[in-house]
């Protein structure tokens, strides 16, 4: 945006990238640095920090929009939104606990990795909430796409392309988000003691109900379904879901802060914090989640947690050899899914592909797109794909 507090910083960074392009010198884009240990170690002599791109340029509560610099700490954005009773609805995960990292996660990283938590099933992913971006491409040119309005089909949607590109197509400088009101109340309907397959059946039943479920997770013997809204709505939907669950067992209803704490745990994969081993994140059809896990367990030692109704599976396994890569990829692909190594040592991440390799036709297309945005491959080279 014009007059954004980070406008001068954007120009300066564009100059830096243009010089790097000129020199053919790769750079690593660093925000808060809390997820540096995710993906391939970047092959770059130099880091470029987004810290100078900090500040909220616009927050219009009545229009549900927020525009801020990519280097703005996520915590600052969340606090500003909370003051107006609003939030980023896609519930981005905080990776610090899982990765054992420190620093302040930034808004740009949330966008660049399309970081979406449990509410993804109902409110959409980060990419769905992103209304517009500004970025610096690999030539040092500033490009803007999308805008700050809720509906926009003017030209190609490069906003989505940027979401989840891990800084390999451009350095994001500014992001406009759709934000949503924080509901008055929330409750979690909890079942205990179900096996994985039964648990996912219960989650499917809840997601196929009219109660507008905003979280559906299973792990450590607990099966959780969340509803949010006005107090009167929650008073209706909580018990309605408990009744729906009666074939699965007697459900308990947890509300308020206790419910919120459960979902922070799901979001941040808390059950794996402090436990040794490699952590994988797998996406499949929800009904395939438990089948995948039992196939894996028949061939090795795995612990599993489920989110997104069973469609997002977190796996913990020993970090020996390829950290389970070949086995996990084979079983996942056989089910039409894909797997990402989220936690592993630098050696493991250099030896196995952390991101799912693409089919040949898609890989060629991705390579052409990369070359279109970053012809000399100077932005985060190697991070996502070789």
């Amino acid at each position, binding site marked *: 945006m014009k007059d954004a507090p980070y406008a001068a910083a954007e120009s300066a960074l564009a100059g830096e990238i243009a010089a790097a392009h000129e020199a053919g010198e790769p750079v690593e884009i660093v925000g808060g640095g809390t997820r540096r240990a995710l993906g391939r170690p970047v092959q770059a002599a130099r880091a470029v920090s987004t810290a100078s791109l900090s500040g909220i340029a616009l927050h*219009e509560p*009545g*229009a549900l*929009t927020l525009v801020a610099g990519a280097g703005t700490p996520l915590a600052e954005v969340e606090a500003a939104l909370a003051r107006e*009773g609003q939030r980023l609805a896609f519930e981005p995960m905080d990776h610090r606990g899982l990765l054992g990292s420190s620093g302040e996660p930034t808004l740009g990283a949330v966008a660049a990795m399309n970081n979406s938590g449990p509410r*993804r*099933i109902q409110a*959409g*992913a980060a*990419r*769905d909430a992103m209304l517009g971006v500004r970025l610096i*491409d690999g030539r040092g*040119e500033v*490009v*803007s*796409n999308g*805008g*700050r*309005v*809720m*509906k*926009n*089909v*003017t*030209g*190609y*949607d*490069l*906003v*989505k*392309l940027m979401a*989840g590109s891990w800084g390999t197509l451009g350095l994001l400088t500014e992001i406009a988000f759709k934000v*949503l*009101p924080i509901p*008055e109340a929330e409750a979690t309907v909890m079942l205990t003691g179900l096996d994985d397959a039964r648990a996912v059946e219960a989650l*499917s039943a809840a997601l*196929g109900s*009219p109660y507008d479920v905003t979280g559906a997770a299973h792990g450590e013997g607990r099966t959780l379904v969340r509803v949010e809204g*006005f107090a*009167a*709505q929650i008073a*209706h939907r909580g018990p309605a879901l408990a009744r729906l669950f009666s074939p699965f067992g007697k459900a308990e209803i947890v509300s308020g802060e206790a419910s919120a704490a459960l979902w922070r745990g799901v979001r941040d994969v808390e059950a794996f914090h402090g436990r040794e081993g490699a952590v994988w994140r797998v*996406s499949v*059809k929800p*009904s395939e989640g438990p089948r995948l896990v039992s196939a894996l367990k028949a061939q090795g030692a795995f612990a599993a947690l489920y989110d*997104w109704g069973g469609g997002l599976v977190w796996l913990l396994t020993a970090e020996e050899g390829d950290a389970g890569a070949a086995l996990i990829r084979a079983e996942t692909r056989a089910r*039409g899914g*894909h797997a*990402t190594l989220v936690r592993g040592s630098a050696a493991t991440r250099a030896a196995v592909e952390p*991101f*799912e390799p*693409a089919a040949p*036709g*898609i890989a060629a*297309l*991705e390579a*052409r797109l990369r070359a*279109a*945005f970053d012809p000399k491959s100077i932005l985060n080279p190697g991070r*996502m794909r070789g």
Partner: protein
Amino acid sequence: MQMPEPEARILSRKAEIVARLEAALSPGAVIHAEEEVRVYECDALTAYRCPPLAVILPSSTAEVAAALRILHEERVPVVPRGSGTSLAGGALPTADSVILGVARMNRVLETDYENRFIRVETGRTNLSVTGAVEAEGFFYAPDPSSQLACAIAGNIAMNSGGAHCLKYGVTTNNLLGVTMVTMEGEVLEIGGHALDAPGLDLLGVICGSEGQLGVVTEATLRILAKPEGARPILLGFDENEVAGACVSDIIRAGVLPVAIEFMDRPCIRACEDFAHAGYPDVEALLIVEVEGSEAEIDDQLAKIREIAARHSPREMRESRSAEESAAIWKGRKAAFGAMGQINDYMCLDGTIPVSALPLVLRRIGEMSRDFGLDVANVFHAGDGNMHPLILFDANKPGDLELCEAFGAEILKLCVEVGGCLTGEHGVGVEKRDLMEHQYSAADLEAQLRVKDAFDPRWLLNPAKVFPLHVTAGRRMAA
């Protein structure tokens, strides 16, 4: 409206091209007689027409791929087409182009209620997707007003929205995967069944690319469980500004209606005359719909009444039954038809920040006086997607041009206040020449490079979306 000169080398090879296509496709799939191709000379932007070289109606992805390989070799431009309801001229042919229609590909390939998706061939109409799953209590959320006719193919290409997208999002938010055939005839599987896909978000950029990146033949769509119920409230106000402020307050209060529709006086009047919906005689009217159980609906509507009451509404009419709901929606649903009865009209589609609503409505009123053409406003107020309808007389020389000039001024105003040229109808040919008002040369160049990556020869729908002078070099080089 300027379109590229048709290429003589293509026109002169029509017989050979048709013969090759006929050999590759099933019988009856190639249409080339002059009187028959005329059916495809325009879409719903009927002011512009041009019969294509030929029309092909393949019946499978494999046939689409075979046809595209031939057309790529022959270097013939291809205009993909769903049902031809585009309001932006997205499916308008040129004389040297082949229309590739997916209308014959309309099967449901898979329904999976446990995992909540449906896979269809993209020629299937929007409404019939919901039709295929509603017996099980599910629906497909994006609901353009044209849903009876428009195809999923066009919905994906335009990233179409609908009245209920305030809560459920537009096409891109409900699309999980597609099968797409490139101009070279390569079949790509993009996305899948999961809520995220590996690699770059190609699906995100394909959705809304107006048939310029590939031909989408199959799609996996999210389906959702139907809510327990839904009911609207109708609110009437003496001033547009006040209605606009009320919209903002409802949104801020945390009530998330599924729809907030806005109509101004000229539109209310036309709907009254046409549909006799029994609307009050007010300056501005809102229809706000909420979902849930009966008790939840009562509770939310009470909250909305409370907010509206602070804005001294002239009328608050809460629906208590299915009949009353239908009566409230009747006029709104008939709005376009009603306007069509009394006049020729052009429907605009700019989006603005909700906060700019009062200013923009006032400026449109002033411009209406300056241009001497009436405007009726009906739009999705919750998300700022405006649909000003400019009334004109197609039989009056110069009126269409005047109307287009007025439309362009309104769209420029939308951009000026922080909005955009089009919220859901797409750029097509209609807004092509305004793109430079919204985007800088570098912004446009980044988009053109994306097309280069998908369609290096610039054969897919090449004369759309970008101003012709911006794409000339690329189109000529191809």
